[in-house]
């Protein structure tokens, strides 16, 4: 198993090195004598693929399509308003390269806001995805996290942030804003993934203590997800494939990713998936949703974040569809809201109810249909630090406010 896990990385590194001209095939093989035969065969297959004759569109299509395309293009857009330009500038600051600067700016803005207008900070805190001040709201949360003093404080803060995302999702669902609803749900999943992975890096005893502390709050959030599912309108028609998948086409700015099923990507390509490290987290999720912890770890190692897994398990309970099918469905449809709509979960009696405490399984354990084995390197994220705990209880919906 370990050998297999290694060879996918070795293969990838060899392919990259050869493509960049840094190494020859012979050098790669010489560096890995233990995998020589297999590597030689796989690199040979890769080389065969790369040297295959290239398919290209018909010449007539090539010439006609550009003209046709340009004819179909709509007129130039209306010029952006000052607010839109300001919003775009802020969002560009929030991209990874500018995150540090944005955080610093957020702190400065907070100071200015506290000196001259407490209303700005208040308004930012009430912002929801899609609002001009929402990035500021998130930046403030990041600053608080970076100032946290202990893993416990950080965890409680992250739970509070997750609760805030759910509250925002509820508000957006009420307003019928599907796109930003998906953003809020995706960010909820990200926050929970990050929280659980951070917890997973603590010693086992600390993990157990924290999970005991946070368990009731997460159960409460589980209730909120159920309420959200119940609020999602049912599909008007069973088939509207083109419009359904329009949303996921946008990769969006990096601060509000809706697309990826994987919330946390490894910082280091060579990071391996150490599933066992996260076993207490997986055990807790498994107990909550009466699932198989090994299967949960397997999903984690396949690149799904724990938040994503929790949402899939919760949805699976309600819909009777396997989590693996739900992962695929979510990938196809672009967001959990779309999945809930497509499955017609609205108004379904909550017969299963949110599982409260980890209990004995009285349902069949969920197994993936396609157990394809080993994982890629989904390394744990950096610990986000800690901060003073917010009110981690059930958040109250906030009114959407635009400047």
């Amino acid at each position, binding site marked *: 198993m370990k050998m297999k896990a290694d060879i*996918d990385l070795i*293969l*990838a590194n060899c392919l*990259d090195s050869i*493509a960049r001209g840094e190494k020859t095939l012979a050098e790669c093989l010489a560096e890995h004598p233990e995998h020589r035969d297999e590597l030689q065969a*796989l690199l*040979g*297959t*890769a080389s*065969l*693929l*790369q040297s*295959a*004759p*290239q*398919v*290209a*569109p*018909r*010449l*007539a*299509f*090539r010439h006609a399509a*550009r003209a046709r*395309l*340009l004819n*179909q*293009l709509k*007129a*130039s*857009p209306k010029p*952006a308003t000052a607010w839109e330009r300001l919003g*775009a500038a802020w*969002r560009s600051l929030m*991209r990874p390269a500018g995150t540090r600067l944005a955080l610093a700016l957020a702190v400065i803005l907070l100071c200015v806001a506290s000196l001259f207008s407490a209303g700005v900070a208040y308004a930012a805190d009430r912002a929801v995805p899609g609002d001009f001040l929402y990035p500021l709201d998130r930046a403030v949360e990041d600053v608080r996290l970076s100032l946290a003093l202990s893993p416990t404080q950080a965890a409680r803060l992250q739970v509070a942030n997750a609760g805030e995302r759910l509250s925002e999702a509820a508000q957006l669902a009420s307003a019928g804003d599907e796109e930003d609803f998906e953003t809020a749900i995706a960010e909820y999943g990200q926050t929970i993934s990050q929280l659980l992975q951070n917890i997973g890096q603590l010693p086992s005893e600390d993990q157990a203590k924290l999970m005991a502390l946070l368990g009731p709050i997460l159960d409460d959030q589980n209730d909120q997800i159920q309420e959200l599912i119940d609020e999602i309108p049912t599909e008007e028609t069973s088939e509207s*494939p083109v419009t359904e*998948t*329009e949303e*996921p086409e*946008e*990769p*969006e*700015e*990096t601060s509000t990713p809706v*697309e*990826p099923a*994987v919330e*946390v*990507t490894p910082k280091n*390509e060579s*990071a*391996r998936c150490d599933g066992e490290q996260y076993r207490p987290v997986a055990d807790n999720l498994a107990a909550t949703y009466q699932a198989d912890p090994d299967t949960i770890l397997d999903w984690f190692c*396949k*690149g799904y974040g724990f938040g994503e897994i929790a949402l899939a398990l919760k949805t699976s309970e309600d819909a009777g569809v396997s989590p693996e099918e739900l992962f695929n469905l979510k990938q196809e449809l*672009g967001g959990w809201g779309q999945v809930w709509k497509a499955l017609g979960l609205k108004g379904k009696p909550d017969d299963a109810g949110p599982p409260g405490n980890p209990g004995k399984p009285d349902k069949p354990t969920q197994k993936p249909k396609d157990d394809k084995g080993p*994982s*890629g*390197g*989904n*390394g744990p994220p950096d610990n986000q630090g800690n901060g003073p705990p917010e009110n981690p209880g059930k958040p109250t919906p906030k009114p959407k406010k635009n400047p």
Partner: protein
Amino acid sequence: MALGQTDLTEGELIARAIQGDKEAFGDLYELYLDQIYRYAYFRVGDNNTAEDLTETAFLKAWERLQVKPEKLSIYNFRAWIYRIAHNLVIDHYRMKKQHLHLDQVEPLKDTDPAPETVALNSQQGEQIAQAIAQLDPLMQEVIVCRFINQLSHAETAEIIGRNTGYVRVLQYRALQQLRAILEADRK
């Protein structure tokens, strides 16, 4: 990278396209046409459908650029346009109620073979294309992105919505399977 007649860089073209410059978008179309077409072709196995999907992908991209330009990540245009094509392929199979089971589709038998496509008609090309069509859809995507269109692990990961570690694993398994398929064909 200077492109075509305009001598503008890719980034400049994207910036101009976001501002509504159709010609700049046309140049981007030229730049990515072959890649997107190849991607579509290997996923649907039909020249006409691949052309339709390619054209639709660019139209949708233009519409998106005009509606919410501030939300686009300019530096990642390539992954974005692939992502649009990826969704269109999914729509295509959903509409045909085949849900991406390419093995149920007669692979790469074009009813209207075009001279330019026919590179694949060489024995080796066709053999490879049919071998790829026997992989599961996610593996097909990884193989097409990585080896047919020469995308990086990171770009491929972004397109298929997984992490790079998972792409590496899929790449390894897909190459193993392809090797077995090709060897079996030879016998």
